């Protein structure tokens, strides 16, 4: 057992990952431990690094489209939404209203799928094996619906500049409505099985505290930020697409502990259902793909586009020199910033708590590493 000679206390280092069941991918956390207590937790990232930003520079914007879905593969559609939105913003192309509605519906479905996966995986981190099967049961329904319209189940390439690649039909609307009904009735099951469970509550309540100040210092966004009581959601604060047309709330928590994050995520699913329902009710008729020129150059200059993914703010910043390929494409991913306060958060917590916090952060490692 190696001990740290510089330290007065007898502490030792523990390598958690890159292959560890609860780091959700190839994340390594270097832990300085004192018994079972974590003295310091330093994330070591980059094992899944694919140099997406360089890929963005070496491909035309059209060629980068499929890559945008491979950032956050659990909630791929909002990521694509951001990239397509950016190109549309730069070129001034507008998608027809029906396409915008479809984008919102599919993005929100994807958000629900992502939250359901998180819910199951989070409980798996806490040692409950069964909930993940129930959430997967629900998530499969979403994936079936999305597969029907996009053609794939995980890494969609569905959004196009000026619209979407395929129109939705009546069976899609029916299936989605049926899914809304189903998920609403399932929340009771999750409440019974998880939310009220005394072991679960004792495991997640008051362990670590996310604060608004910490969120500002580290750029933490998404449900974790909202759990601290700050009502910040790109969909409301810097609305894009047709989000302003819907009536929905941004759920916020109070205390900013992991139980609040959990509650915020569950309530977000309900709000997403509300958005989908309204969008289905008001779905306009018309084309889903605007006429776009086959060769489309990006004008010289820069633009930014931020979207709210399931994990927080994802923003693209593109600089173009007027050529075929972007001159620089910066991708800001939410998990990158959400993970960075880990060392500050996890001081003097137990190893089990660290696993719980990692689960709360809802990390998608390829999105951090890009």
């Amino acid at each position: 057992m190696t001990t740290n000679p510089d330290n007065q206390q007898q502490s030792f280092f523990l390598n958690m990952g890159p292959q560890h069941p609860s780091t959700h991918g190839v994340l390594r956390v270097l832990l300085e431990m004192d018994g079972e207590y974590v003295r310091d937790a330093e994330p070591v990232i980059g094992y899944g690094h694919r140099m997406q930003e360089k890929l963005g520079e070496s491909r035309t914007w059209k060629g980068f489209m499929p890559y945008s879905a491979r950032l956050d593969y659990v909630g791929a559609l909002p990521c694509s939404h951001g990239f397509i939105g950016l190109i549309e913003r730069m070129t001034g192309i507008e998608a027809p209203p029906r396409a915008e509605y479809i984008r919102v519906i599919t993005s929100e479905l994807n958000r629900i799928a992502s939250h359901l996966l998180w819910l199951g995986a989070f409980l798996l981190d806490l040692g409950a094996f069964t909930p993940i099967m129930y959430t997967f049961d629900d998530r499969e329904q979403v994936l079936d619906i999305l597969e029907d319209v996009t053609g794939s189940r995980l890494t969609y390439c569905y959004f196009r500049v000026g619209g979407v690649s395929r129109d939705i039909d009546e069976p899609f609307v029916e299936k989605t409505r049926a899914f809304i009904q189903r998920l609403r009735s399932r929340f009771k099951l999750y409440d019974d099985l998880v939310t009220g469970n005394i072991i679960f509550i004792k495991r997640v309540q008051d362990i670590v505290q996310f604060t608004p100040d910490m969120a500002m210092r580290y750029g933490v966004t998404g449900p974790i930020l909202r759990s601290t009581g700050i009502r910040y959601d790109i969909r409301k604060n810097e609305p894009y697409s047709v989000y302003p047309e819907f009536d929905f709330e941004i759920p916020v928590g109070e205390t900013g502990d992991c139980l609040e994050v959990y509650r915020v995520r569950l309530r977000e699913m309900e709000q997403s259902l509300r958005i989908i329902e309204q969008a289905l009710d008001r779905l306009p008729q018309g084309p889903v793909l605007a006429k776009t020129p086959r060769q489309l150059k990006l004008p010289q200059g820069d633009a930014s586009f931020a979207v709210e993914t399931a994990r927080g703010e994802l923003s693209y910043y593109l600089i173009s020199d007027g050529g075929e390929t972007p001159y620089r494409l910066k991708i800001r991913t939410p998990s990158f910033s959400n993970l960075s306060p880990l060392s500050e958060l996890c001081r003097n917590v137990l190893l089990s708590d660290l696993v719980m916090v990692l689960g709360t952060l809802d990390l998608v490692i390829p999105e951090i590493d890009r």
Partner: protein
Amino acid sequence: MNKTDQLIEELSRLPAAVNRVDYRQRGYHLEVRLQAGQVPAFAGLLRQREFYLVFVSAVHVSPAIEIIYQFACFAQPCRILARSTVAADGTLPSIANIFHGANWHERETRDMFGVVFTGHPGLEPLLLPEEEADLKPLLKEEGALKPADQIRRAPDEEVQDTKPSTTAEPGAKKPNVEHRQ
């Protein structure tokens, strides 16, 4: 006087060149141009005004690498994009002690561009392996490097007409023949 106007005034006192831009075209509200030395003061100001750090990154243009900062605010829709050119010795003051999240962003920027942030608590490689610390993959090659004014949008320029362009596809996209049979 609303908050944004106040902010613009405070920023100009730094002094920094502040531009209001069209959000619908650019995706941000304010464009700020900074001298390298003003960066910490600028970050400190935004920290007081309760902004959060979106990202720190860079772009390689001639004559020198430009560092890009983006900030946004939880309270009001105000997204700020700030630019600063690195000093001649390739360094820039770090803001990692003001916005702690900048720690990782600056480490990443050092990985990709080799920019040294002075005052950073530990500028080790973040994404790239330590043994390839000299890789700097996002630096442009000789032919691809553009002067800074070629990546700027002209002020008040309208969005370009989206007529079909007649130019041919670039030769660079030709497939690499030896990999595929």
